[in-house]
C-alpha cells in the first residue's frame, strides 16, 4: 500500500459522525475516499462550500464549482455555498470540528510549519494559518520523513504556521500526539517497529505502552461498496483523480 493511502486511511478513522471537516489540498484530500461506513461528515472547502462530492463526469464540469485546489467538484444534495468572509467565520469561529493539513515540520511542542521554506518556496499560507488557529482539532497528515530527513523535529527550523499545538500527527509509520509532556507515540503502522519510528523521528518520543505500542487497524475498504449512495470519492475513478491531484500539488511545492 502506498504511504499516502496508509496515512489517508488512518486519518479517516478520526472522523466523527455529524461533524464539519476541512481537508487541506494534496494528501489530506484523499481522506475523503475512506470515510468509515455509517459516518456522515460534512466537508467544507474554504473557497465557499459545504457538502461537495466527487469530481463530476467528464464534460459535466461546472466552471463555478471547484475545491480549494481548483479541481472540479460536484455538490451533494443539501450543499450550502457562501462567500470567503462567511467561510472563514466558520473556520475561525470554532465551527470547524476538524481540519487535516499537510506538514513540512512538527516540533516537540506540537507546533506545525507547513507554509514556506525560506529562500526556496514561498507559496503563501492560504487558509492554513486560519485553519490551525481556528479548528477544534488539527490533524497533520504527512509522510514521516522527507528525503530521509525527519519531519518531526525537536525545534522548527521553518517558520511556524501558528502558535497553537496541533492535535495529532499521522504518518505512514505512526500516530503521534503532542501533549503537555511532549510527543507521545500512540500507535504504529502495521508491521512497523517502534525502533524504526524512533530512528525516523528527530524529536524525543514518549512511548505510550513501551515498545509494545499498538498497531493501528486499516480495515479493508471495499471500493465500490457504497455505489448506491453518492460516490463521495469512493469509486476507483474518483480516487484516481484525487490521487493524481494530490501528487500534482506535491509536484508544485
Amino acid at each position, binding site marked *: 500500500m502506498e504511504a499516502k493511502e496508509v496515512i489517508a486511511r488512518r486519518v479517516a478513522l478520526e472522523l466523527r459522525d455529524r461533524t464539519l471537516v476541512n481537508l487541506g489540498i494534496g494528501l489530506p484530500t484523499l481522506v475523503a475516499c475512506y470515510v468509515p461506513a455509517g459516518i456522515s461528515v460534512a466537508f467544507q*472547502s*474554504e*473557497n*465557499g*462550500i459545504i457538502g461537495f462530492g466527487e469530481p463530476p463526469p467528464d464534460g459535466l464540469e*461546472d*466552471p*463555478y*464549482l*471547484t*475545491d*480549494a*485546489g*481548483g479541481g472540479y467538484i460536484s*455538490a451533494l444534495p443539501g450543499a450550502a*455555498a*457562501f*462567500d*470567503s*468572509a462567511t*467561510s*472563514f467565520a466558520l*473556520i*475561525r469561529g470554532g465551527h470547524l470540528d476538524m481540519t487535516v493539513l499537510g506538514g513540512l515540520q512538527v516540533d516537540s511542542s506540537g507546533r506545525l510549519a507547513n507554509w514556506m521554506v525560506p529562500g526556496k*518556496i*514561498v*507559496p*503563501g*499560507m*492560504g*487558509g*492554513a*494559518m*486560519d485553519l490551525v*488557529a*481556528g479548528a477544534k482539532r488539527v490533524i497533520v497528515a504527512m509522510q514521516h520523513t522527507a528525503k530521509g530527513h525527519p519531519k518531526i523535529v525537536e525545534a522548527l527550523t521553518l*517558520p*511556524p*504556521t*501558528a*502558535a*497553537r499545538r496541533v492535535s495529532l500527527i499521522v504518518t505512514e509509520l505512526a500516530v503521534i500526539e503532542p501533549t503537555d509532556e511532549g510527543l507521545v507515540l500512540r500507535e504504529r503502522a502495521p508491521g512497523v517497529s517502534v525502533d524504526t519510528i524512533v530512528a525516523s523521528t528527530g524529536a524525543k518520543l514518549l512511548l505510550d505502552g513501551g515498545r509494545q505500542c499498538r498497531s493501528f487497524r486499516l480495515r479493508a475498504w471495499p471500493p465500490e461498496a457504497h455505489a448506491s449512495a453518492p460516490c463521495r470519492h469512493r469509486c476507483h475513478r474518483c480516487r484516481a483523480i484525487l490521487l493524481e491531484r494530490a501528487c500534482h500539488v506535491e509536484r*508544485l*511545492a
Partner: protein
Amino acid sequence: MQDGISAERAAAMIPDGASVMFGGFLGVGSPDRVIDALVARGARGLTLICNDTASPGVGVGKLIEAGCVAHVKASHIGTNPTTQKKMISGEIEVELVPQGTLAERIRAGGSGLGGVLTRTGVGTVVSEGKQVWEIDGESFLLEMPLRADFALLRAHEADHFGNLTYRLTAANFNPVMAFAADCVIAEPEEIVPVGVIPPDAVRTPGVLVHHLVRRPQ
C-alpha cells in the same frame, strides 16, 4: 442605472498605479473580460488585492505575466510560478496575508471598522511589526482595514440596478470586496431587468455597484 459599459471602457477607467481588488479564487469567479482589457491596454504599476494569483494565463495570472503589476496582497501565490519569479527578481512586491485575515481586513475596510483582532498569525512572521493585544488573557493580532481604488467583481446575474447574484464557489471574495472600494465595477454573466432577481436572492445590493460591464455584443 447608467448604461452598461464595455470591458475596454472599464479598463480605461483604471489608471496605472491604481489599487484594485479582484474577486476570484484560482481564477474561478474572476472578472476575466476586464482583466483581458487591462492586459490589452498595457496597464502598469497596479496593486492587486486578491486571494491568489491563479496560474499563468488564468484570471489575474494574465496581469502578472503581462507586467501590469507592481504590488500584490494575497494569501497564496504558489500556483503561479511567474509571480514567484517576479517576486524573487524584485519586479513585484508581495504581501502575504492569511486568507481569513484578508477577508476580514477587506470586510473591515468596507464596514467602517478600525481594525481586525484575530488569533490568526499570532506567533508567526505575520505578526512581525504589528500590535498584539491581550484581551481577556488571550493574544490577538491587530490587522488593519483594507480598501482599494477599484473593486472588479465577477457576478452571475446583475439587474439594471446593479443588484448581483453569484454562483456556487464563484462568490468567494466578490461579495466582501463590493463594500471596500471607491469604485466598484461588476462583470456579470447575465444582465436582467429590474425585478427578475427577487430581494432575498440579491447577494450584493445594487447601491454598491458603480458600473456594470455589458455582455459581449
